[in-house]
C-alpha cells in the first residue's frame, strides 16, 4: 500500500498524540492513581502504535508497543506507577519525537533502535513481579481483537436500511426516481486494522461523488470527518451508474472490507415506531462496540467511570479544536486577492476625488463606503484564517520546565495563561525558540537556588509565569519569574571584564542601558555554565528573531523580586493602517501604530543639545530626526521660518520627532515585499502601492530611533 499520501496526516496526528501523552504523563506524575489519565495514555500509545505500524515504521511501533504493555499492566492494576517509571516514559517520548522528526525530514524513521529504552520498559514489567507480563499482555490483546472480530461479524449487515430520511430527502429520492436516476443504499465496512478511517471514508465519498450525488449519510459527513464512527457508514446515493460500477468504485479504495449496495426503495412514511427502533439500534451497537475496552480492565477501581470519561473526552475534542487544514499557499493567494481589492478600493477613492472636483458624487461615495466595509470584513476573516492559538507552541513548556527543574536541581513551577491568544501562523511558527530561550533563562539565571530563596524569605518553589494577551494591534507575551532579578552591578562587572565597556562608561550607564548589554552577542552572566543556558547564545538570538518578526523585547527588572521579559508582536504582518506623508516630493507611509502625536513646531523651539536637535513638548525632551537628511531627499526651498510638521513616534519608552513636509492622511496600506534583488536599508520596512499605481515606501520608525 502506498502510504506517502497519508504522511502529512500521520505526522500531524502523531504530534498531537505525543503532546497528549506528554500532558497526561505530567498529570500522572502528580496523580499516579488517576485511572482516567492511565486510560488516556494507554489509548494514545495504542493509536500511535497502530499508526506507526500502518505506515511501516517498525522501530516506532516496537517502542510504542512496549510502552503500551507497561500501561496495560498499570491499567490492570498489576503494579503501580513509580517515579522512576515516569522518567523512562519521558525518555520514550523523546525517542518517539525523534522518530517523528526524522520521518518529517526524510520520511524514514532513522536507525536508532532505542534498545536501552525497550529494555528499561521490559525490566519495569519484570521487576514488578510479573514475569509473564509481556506475554499475557499480548494474549489479552489477541483476546480483545478476537472479541472485536466476533462482535463485528455479528453486526455486519446492510445498515443503510436503518437510515431515516426526512421530507426533503424523500422528495429528492422521488424526483431522482422520476428522472430515471437510480437510488442506492450503500453500507461500507472499513477494515478493522485501518488507522485512518476518516481518510478512507473521505476517499469513498470522493469516488462516489464522481458517479453521482450522496444525499444522506449516517453518521453525518461531519462526524465521519471527525472519525466519530465505528468501522462502518451508510449512504443513500443517486447515480446513473449500475450497482456493480458503484460497488467497484467503493472497492477501489483500499482497506475497505465490505461494501453493500442495493437499490433503495422508499419505505412507507408510516410506522414511526419501527423507525425509531431502527434508529436506536445502531446507537446501541456503537455503545456495545465501544464498551469492550473499559470492561476488559476488570481490576480497575471504577471501570465504568474510567471508561466513560475518556471516551467523552475524545469525542468532545474535535468540537473544541475543530480545525481546517488549509494549504498556506491557498491562504496566501486569498490574501493577495484581498490586497488587490484594497488597491482597487484606493484607486476608486482617488477617482472620486477627481469627480468631486467637478460636481456631485454622493452615490459614488455610498458605493465606496460599501466597498470599504466589504474589504474590511474580508480582510478580517482572512486574517482570522491565518491566526492560530499560541497553544501549539507553549504546550511543550511545562514538560521542559519539569526537566529543567530536575537538571538544575531547583524546585520550580510554570504558570501559563492566555494560551488561546491567537497570532499569525508564520509568527507562531517562529516564536517557539525565543520563548524557550527566555524560559530557560528565567529558570537558570532568574530563579535562585532553593536554599537561597528560603533564606530570603521567599517560598521554596520558584515560580515562572508565561502570560499572553492581546493589546490593541499587538500581542504581548510576558515571561516573568519571582527570582532575584537582574543584578545590574554584576552585569556591569561582566561587561567590563569582557571589554565591552570601560569602568568610566559603566558609572554613567542607566539601568536600561545595562540591561541592553544582555542582548549583545556572547554575553552571559551565569557564574556556572550549564548546558541549559550560559553559552552566550540566546538573548541576542531572541532579540534578532523577535525583531525579524517586527516585534520588540522589553525588560522590566525589580532587584530581589524578579524580572519580566515582555515580547510585543504585531497581530498581522500584511496590512497596516498608515499615515501617508510627503517629504520633498516623495511619498512615504508611516505605520499608525507607532505614532503618538503630530505637532506643529516653530523653528525657534528647536534647541541644540550635544549638537543634536531636540524639542520640548509638554515637559519631555524629544530628539528631532530630519527625514529628508536620513532619506537623502533634497530639501524644499523657501523653508526658512515656516513651522515644521513633526510626527512624534514611539519605540518602547523612547520618543522621537520626525520632520516631514506635508501630511496626506490615514490609509490602509498593503505591505509588499521588494524582492530579493534589492537590499533595502533597515529604515525601509517594505513598499506599498497607492491608488494611482505609484509605489510608496514604508518607513520603519523603530529602525530610525
Amino acid at each position: 500500500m502506498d502510504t506517502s499520501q497519508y504522511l502529512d496526516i500521520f505526522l500531524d496526528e502523531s504530534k498531537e498524540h505525543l503532546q497528549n501523552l506528554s500532558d497526561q504523563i505530567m498529570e500522572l506524575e502528580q496523580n499516579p492513581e488517576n485511572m482516567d489519565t492511565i486510560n488516556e495514555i494507554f489509548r494514545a500509545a495504542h493509536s500511535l502504535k497502530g499508526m506507526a505500524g500502518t505506515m511501516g515504521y517498525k522501530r516506532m511501533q516496537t517502542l510504542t508497543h512496549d510502552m503500551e504493555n507497561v500501561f496495560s499492566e498499570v491499567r490492570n492494576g498489576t503494579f503501580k506507577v513509580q517515579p522512576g517509571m515516569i522518567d523512562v516514559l519521558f525518555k520514550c517520548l523523546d525517542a518517539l519525537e525523534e522518530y517523528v522528526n526524522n520521518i518529517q525530514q526524510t520520511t524514514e524513521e532513522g536507525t536508532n533502535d532505542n534498545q536501552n529504552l525497550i529494555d528499561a520498559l521490559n525490566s519495569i514489567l519484570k521487576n514488578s513481579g510479573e514475569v509473564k507480563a509481556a506475554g499475557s499482555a499480548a494474549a489479552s490483546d489477541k483476546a480483545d481483537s478476537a472479541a472485536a472480530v466476533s462482535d463485528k461479524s455479528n453486526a455486519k449487515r446492510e445498515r443503510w436500511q436503518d437510515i431515516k430520511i426526512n421530507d426533503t430527502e424523500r422528495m429528492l429520492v422521488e424526483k431522482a426516481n422520476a428522472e430515471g436516476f437510480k437510488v442506492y443504499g450503500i453500507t461500507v465496512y472499513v477494515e478493522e486494522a485501518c488507522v485512518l478511517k476518516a481518510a478512507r471514508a473521505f476517499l469513498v465519498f470522493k469516488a462516489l461523488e464522481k458517479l453521482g450525488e450522496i444525499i444522506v449519510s449516517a453518521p453525518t459527513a461531519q462526524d465521519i470527518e471527525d472519525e466519530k464512527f465505528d468501522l462502518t457508514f451508510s449512504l443513500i446515493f443517486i447515480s446513473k451508474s449500475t450497482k456493480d460500477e458503484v460497488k467497484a468504485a467503493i472497492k477501489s479504495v483500499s482497506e475497505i472490507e465490505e461494501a453493500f449496495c442495493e437499490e433503495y426503495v422508499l419505505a412507507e412514511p408510516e410506522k414511526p415506531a419501527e423507525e425509531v427502533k431502527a434508529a436506536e439500534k445502531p446507537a446501541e451497537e456503537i455503545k456495545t462496540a465501544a464498551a469492550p475496552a473499559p470492561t476488559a480492565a476488570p481490576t480497575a477501581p471504577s471501570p465504568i467511570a474510567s471508561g466513560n470519561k475518556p471516551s467523552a473526552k475524545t469525542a468532545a475534542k474535535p468540537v473544541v479544536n475543530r480545525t481546517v487544514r488549509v494549504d498556506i499557499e491557498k491562504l496566501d493567494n486569498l490574501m493577495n486577492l484581498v490586497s488587490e481589492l484594497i488597491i482597487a478600493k484606493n484607486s476608486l477613492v482617488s477617482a472620486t476625488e477627481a469627480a468631486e472636483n467637478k460636481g456631485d458624487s454622493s452615490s459614488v461615495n455610498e458605493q465606496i463606503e460599501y466597498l470599504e466595509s466589504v474589504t474590511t470584513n474580508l480582510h478580517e476573516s482572512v486574517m482570522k484564517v491565518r491566526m492560530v492559538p499560541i497553544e501549539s507552541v507553549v504546550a511543550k513548556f511545562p514538560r521542559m520546565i519539569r526537566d529543567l527543574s530536575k537538571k538544575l536541581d531547583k524546585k520550580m513551577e510554570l504558570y501559563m495563561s492566555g494560551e488561546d491568544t491567537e497570532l499569525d501562523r508564520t509568527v507562531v511558527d517562529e516564536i517557539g525558540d525565543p520563548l524557550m530561550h527566555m524560559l530557560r533563562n528565567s529558570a537558570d539565571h532568574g530563579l535562585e537556588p532553593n536554599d537561597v530563596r528560603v533564606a530570603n524569605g521567599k517560598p521554596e518553589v520558584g515560580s515562572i509565569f508565561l502570560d499572553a494577551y492581546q493589546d490593541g494591534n499587538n500581542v504581548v507575551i510576558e515571561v516573568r519569574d519571582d527570582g532575584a532579578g537582574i543584578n545590574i552591578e554584576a552585569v556591569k562587572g561582566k561587561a567590563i571584564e569582557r571589554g565591552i565597556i570601560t569602568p568610566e562608561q559603566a558609572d554613567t550607564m542607566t539601568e536600561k542601558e545595562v540591561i541592553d548589554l544582555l542582548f549583545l552577542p556572547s554575553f552571559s552572566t551565569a557564574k556556572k555554565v550549564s548546558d541549559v543556558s550560559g553559552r552566550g547564545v540566546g538573548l541576542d538570538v531572541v532579540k534578532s528573531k523577535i525583531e525579524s518578526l517586527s516585534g520588540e523585547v522589553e525588560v522590566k527588572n525589580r532587584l530581589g523580586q524578579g524580572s519580566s521579559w515582555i515580547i510585543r508582536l504585531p497581530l498581522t504582518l500584511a496590512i497596516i493602517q498608515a499615515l501617508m506623508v510627503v517629504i520633498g516630493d516623495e511619498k512615504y507611509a508611516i505605520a499608525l501604530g507607532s505614532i503618538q502625536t503630530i505637532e506643529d513646531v516653530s523653528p525657534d523651539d528647536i534647541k541644540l543639545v550635544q549638537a543634536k536637535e531636540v524639542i520640548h513638548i509638554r515637559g519631555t525632551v524629544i530628539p528631532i530626526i530630519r527625514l529628508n537628511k536620513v532619506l537623502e531627499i533634497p530639501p524644499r526651498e523657501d523653508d526658512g521660518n515656516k513651522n515644521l510638521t513633526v510626527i512624534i513616534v514611539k519605540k518602547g519608552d523612547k520618543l522621537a520627532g520626525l520632520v516631514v513636509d506635508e501630511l496626506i492622511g490615514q490609509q490602509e496600506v498593503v505591505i509588499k515585499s521588494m524582492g530579493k534583488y534589492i537590499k533595502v536599508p533597515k529604515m525601509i520596512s517594505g513598499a506599498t502601492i497607492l491608488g494611482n499605481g505609484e509605489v510608496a515606501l514604508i518607513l520603519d520608525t523603530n529602525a530610525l530611533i
Partner: protein
Amino acid sequence: MDEIKVMDEQMRNESLNRPVEHDTTQYIVTQLGGEQYGIDIKYISNIIRMSKITRVPKVSNYIKGVINVRGVVIPTISLRLKMGLPEDEITKKTRIIILTLDQHESIGVLVDEVKEVVTLDEEHTERMSYEKDDKERYLSGVGKADGKLISLLDITAVLAEVVDV
C-alpha cells in the same frame, strides 16, 4: 503593452516559418548607447513603457528604485549605469524589460529602446573568451544577424551582482 503583442506575433510568425531547430535561441534586441544588446527571451516576462519609478534611499546608484507592475513591487536597475555607460536619458522610446529568473522574483531593467526579436543559431554566435573587461564581463557572446553585431547579455551575471549589493 501593445508592443508585446506585436512581438508575440513576430515570434509566432517566425516559429511558424521555420521549423524549431535545437540550437537556436531567440533574443530581444535592445539599444543601449550606440550599441545593440540581445537578451535571451526566456528570461523576459514583460516589456513595459517607462512608468514612475520610486526612488529607494541608500542603495547603489544603478538601482533606480521600485515600480508597480500589476500589483507587484519590482526593483528596477539601469543597465547603462551597471555597464559603466552615461546616465539614462528618458525618452519616448525608453522601456523597462521585466526579467524573471526564478519562479517568483522579478527585476526590471531600463533600456533606451527595444528593437526586434532575432533568432540566432549557434553558428552565428561567438562565445566570449574568459578575459573580459568591465563592460564585457556581462556578455556571454556576440551574435550576427542581418550583418549587424549584437552583444549578448549574460543576464545571470548582471543580476548575480545585484543580489550581492
